[in-house]
């Protein structure tokens, strides 16, 4: 069904991640209408209540907004998207650095390795 979930992590968190990624990569552009809860639930083969929970969370992050009766849309606030993009990059970098640090690499060594890499 297009999307494999990791069973160990709450599904709504994974849906949040997925939609966030789509927004960051501009697969979902500002102002674009999101599929309905029902459609998303079918697309991901998950419980509609879970989709609902994920969308509510995304809304509180300011990444999507609800227009009554019309559905949910990607935020028009570009700065919110930018902020979220930065935060995600920061988070992923941290994860990366942490795992490198575990291997005993310091910052300069990491940069060196990165440069060597094609």
């Amino acid at each position: 069904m297009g999307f494999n979930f990791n069973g160990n992590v709450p599904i709504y968190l994974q849906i949040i991640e997925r939609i966030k990624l789509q927004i960051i990569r501009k697969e979902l552009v500002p102002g674009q209408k999101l599929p309905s809860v029902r459609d998303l639930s079918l697309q991901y083969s998950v419980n509609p209540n879970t989709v609902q929970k994920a969308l509510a969370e995304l809304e509180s992050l300011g990444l999507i907004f609800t227009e009554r009766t019309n559905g949910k849309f990607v935020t028009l606030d570009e700065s919110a998207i930018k902020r979220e993009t930065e935060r995600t990059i920061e988070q992923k970098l941290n994860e990366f650095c942490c795992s490198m640090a575990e291997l005993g690499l310091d910052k300069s060594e990491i940069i060196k390795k990165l440069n060597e890499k094609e």
Partner: protein
Amino acid sequence: MTDLLSVKNVSKSFGDKKVVDDVSFSVPKGKIVGLLGKNGSGKTTILKMINDLLTVDQGEILICGQKVSTKTKALVSFLPERTYLNPTLTVKQTFDFFEDFYSDFDREKAQDLLNDLGLDLNARLAKMSKGMKEKIQLVLVMSRRASLYVLDEPLGGVDPSTRDYIMQTILKNFGEESSILITTHLISDVEKIIDQVVFIDNGKIILNRDAEELREEQNASIDEIFRRTV
């Protein structure tokens, strides 16, 4: 939140053997609840009591606040593990049958689901494989606009592509006003669609939790948690 189904301190014995032992749980409106347990843990016995196929020894079962009766049968759409259709009928005749007896049967919906299966309306059930008959049953059961859907092992013994069809069919037809109680021992397959999990072992409820909370708390899939606990 209203409970569409509440099972209160229910017990059932066959001879000396207590198959269901003081079981209580409820299914709130708009939720999909998974009743998960190994074969022979008492899941099917509970479903049969909900559907008046077995008498309750002790305790009480309420459906939309009413005791199990002819009236509640109109509210519940039950998919048993058995193939319960009269084999001499054609698919069309089974639709007629459901239309005759259930006022909430949505024929158009049934027709749509049947088209997805690529089946002929005039095909006779006797000439179909067991798997096909089970799919027809699922179509019939999910085409009712019932309050409570009770599905017994809907994924048992089917191939992966059929599993997807079944899951999609269930999700497609599940509305906010209804609830689903689903039993299975193939937990990983239903993980994504259940809100609440009820673990049952040897006729006793050993865990009753929100699925996402449980995953978050234990950092593990329901399947894993089930294997650890049961």
